[in-house]
């Protein structure tokens, strides 16, 4: 039978310090950039107008820009979209948004009037238009933040009930890390944060928790077997045992996302990017964020029945890193020559 990563005995968790450095190096520039220039919010959140136009002839972007400036929208963003005949106009500056307070459609009407004057009424068609007043946007961002917090709260309670609070807390903290990392990724790519992309981030949360639950489920099972193995080794063993599943699920989901990236079109593509990154980071953080956090919590608040000495001993070993060869971390129940 075809098997990948079968019976591995990789000491994943030993590398957690290196992993932490990678994470910090990845996050810091993004945090600085976000602090300086904020996110690229879509008009759904800030209020504003977006119009997609199709011209009969390749569109003259500079002429459109000049005409919109005289019409009172000097800050309009204009870009071709797909073919040279299609234009995307985005008006998002505060003065224009303020105009939309009375009726969201006014900017659309004004832009169309300006373009009619310059190019003639029949020379283009409005393929799609979207206009949002500022108040709607404010409510939306509030709702999204609230949704994430409530999702965390409920998942924390569920996992605390199904596992125990240490696992739940490690899962939530690692998932928070995933959100921050995904936001950093979006900042690097300058992806627009639309409502749809927020849905993508929330899906990443679901997927990431999914992955941590699978690993912790194995830890829970191995704990029940009652062998006096240090938690450090137990975590490594569980990660290794679930590794084939982790890789298979990850690659299959990524394959589905690849399909969305290729065929999804411009609406779905940012969403697919967010999920692609989120699924990679979610799998990574199960091993390198959730597990070290669990070890750390366990050291601070040891559970009854687990030998504290074992944990500190294994930590000491991990930090000294004197053993080049991987230690046997698998139970001896399975025959060493289990391959067939």
């Amino acid at each position, binding site marked *: *039978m*075809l098997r990948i990563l079968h019976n591995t005995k990789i000491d994943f968790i030993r590398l957690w310090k290196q992993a932490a450095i990678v994470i910090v190096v990845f996050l810091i520039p993004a945090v600085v950039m976000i602090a300086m220039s904020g996110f690229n919010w879509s008009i759904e959140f800030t209020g504003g107008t977006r119009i*997609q136009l199709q011209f009969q002839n390749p569109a003259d972007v500079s002429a459109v820009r000049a005409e919109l400036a005289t019409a009172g929208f000097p800050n309009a963003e204009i870009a071709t979209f797909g073919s040279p005949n299609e234009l995307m106009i985005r008006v998002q500056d505060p003065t224009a948004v303020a105009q939309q307070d009375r*009726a*969201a*459609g006014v900017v659309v009407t004004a832009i169309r009037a300006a373009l009619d004057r310059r190019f003639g009424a029949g020379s283009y*068609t*409005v393929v*799609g*238009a*979207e*206009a*949002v*007043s500022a*108040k709607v946007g404010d409510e939306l961002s509030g*709702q*999204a933040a*609230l*949704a994430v917090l*409530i*999702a965390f709260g*409920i998942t924390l309670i*569920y*996992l605390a009930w199904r596992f125990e609070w240490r696992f739940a807390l490690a899962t939530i903290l690692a998932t928070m890390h995933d959100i921050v990392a995904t936001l950093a990724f979006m900042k690097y790519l300058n992806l627009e944060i639309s*409502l*749809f992309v*927020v*849905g993508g981030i929330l899906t990443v*949360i*679901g*997927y990431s*928790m*999914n992955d941590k*639950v*699978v690993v912790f*489920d194995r830890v829970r*099972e191995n704990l029940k077997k009652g062998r006096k193995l240090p938690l450090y080794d137990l975590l490594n063993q569980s990660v290794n*045992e679930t590794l*084939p*599943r982790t890789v*298979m*699920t990850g690659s*299959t*989901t*990524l*394959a*589905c*996302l*690849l*399909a*969305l990236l*290729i*065929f999804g*079109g411009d*609406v*779905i593509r940012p*969403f*697919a990017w967010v*999920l692609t990154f989120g699924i990679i980071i979610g799998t990574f953080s199960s091993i390198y964020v959730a597990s070290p956090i669990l070890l750390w919590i366990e050291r601070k608040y040891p559970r009854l029945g687990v030998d504290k000495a074992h944990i500190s001993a294994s930590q000491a070993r991990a930090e000294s890193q004197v053993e080049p060869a991987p230690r046997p971390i698998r139970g001896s129940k399975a025959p060493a020559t*289990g391959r067939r």
Partner: protein
Amino acid sequence: MTNLKYRVATIVALVLISIWALWPRTVIERVKRDGVFVYDTIQRVPLKRGLDLQGGMYLALELDESKGVVSDKEDAIQRAVKVVRNRIDEFGVAEPTVQTVGNNRIIVELPGIDDPERAEAVVQQAAHLQFMITDETNALERAMTRLDQIARDAGGPTSRGALGDTSKASQVTGLEKLFTQDSGAKGADTTKADSATSPIPPTGGPISSLLQRGEMPGEFYITQENVARAEYYFSLPQIQQAIPPGKAVKWGADTMSIGGQVYRTLYVVDSRPIITGESINDARPNTTPIDGTVVEFQLDNEGGRKFRNETRKHIQDYMAIVLDDRVMGRPPVIQGEIGVRGQITLGRRDMQQAQDLALVLRAGALPVPLKIADVRSIGASLGDDAIRQGLSAGALGIAIVILIMVVYYRFSGMLAVLGLVFYSLTTLAMLAGFGAVLTLPGIAGFVLSIGMAVDANFLIFERIREEVDRGKTIRTSIDEGFSHAWSAIVDTHVTTALTAAILYQFGTGPVRGFAVALLAGLAASMVSAIFVVRTLFLLWLNRTRGTAPLSI
């Protein structure tokens, strides 16, 4: 063994139900033909497409408080919804939706609309309420010969192709036959509504054959199938000119059902209203011991004086309550002189109707200032693109998943693929069953949850491999594989479902569509992995009697 039979029977039943839920069925829908809206029966798969897939317009309306604070926001929004719903036909779209979100916003979705500015105007217009006396003089009957003649000259919508192509023409005659049979059968019906059922004197004309005399003077019934033709005739300018002076034709807002047949009402009324909505100060539903459910309304002093004069002249006449050109409910009879305070007695009818009627009166009395907070229009071409993209992505995604499963797990992988077929079928059936609207984010959610659905299979299969490694028999390995993977599958599905449920609760529009698809997918995925794939394994074990090696 019996256990296995029940399992197979359950799966077969679920598959059959799903296929039935997705089977194309005949629905009556308003469709646009040659610029005229007609009700037509069409065959389609019962999965509705969202605005982003078929093109259309989305409007979010809010109370405009810039010119003064609205005291009772909830009532104002309810009145506005009533008014906007009542105008649905003016939008000229097939299936508009009007709904409230929270307590200060109305969402209007107009699929397939191509004139955003007109739609905005229609939505923002103030409501217009009139009380009009129904015609007592048989005005329409007397003019009918002429009307029929004009209609004959103008030609019916059928001859112009407005009711569809020639293949549809036979369908129309079929419906007419049905109509005549029904009116015959209705003579036996106990409803006094049409005991006469005497077709109007000049029968057989294009218009007169559509109308049946109603219960009260000036009232006519038209079967639902014939409404489109009647609307067409009465919208012709020649016909409108030929309607006797001082009279007007107004459609009833609701449909009514008599003896299983659905009718719309048409009223001939005096074109001069006795009072209009501006004279109404308030209207409230109430229950009284003597009259049962009533709507009490109050007029201002001038309106009261006018109303007293008019009602004195029209005792025992019927008064139609007309909101934006549509007659709301059945016209009540005027029983005596009414001044500033009046009461419409609904008798034993339920409170809901009284509330509704009071809302109509208040809507006409107190215009609701609305502003457009959010407007979105999506061209039909964008929708076509989106569908093509969604289908391609879905096809490629499924192909990749099948390839991975079969290459990696061989025979067991094929069982998993069968499970996936079951998964896809039931997910789509659930979406159709809940009346969920298929949107682009919904398709994305579906494609993504295929990836997550196979996760459960990976968990199980890897577990079975481990058990086989430990030297257990095939049958035990399969049993243990499923029972050990169970807890992980349940926990992962529940955590994801919790997130999806919260998305649904707090999200709007695209996020909601995504959450619904994900939730349906998760439910189907659980059943598929834990039940269907396991049953397939059991069937295989039963065939081979546990002797063959397992290809996994």
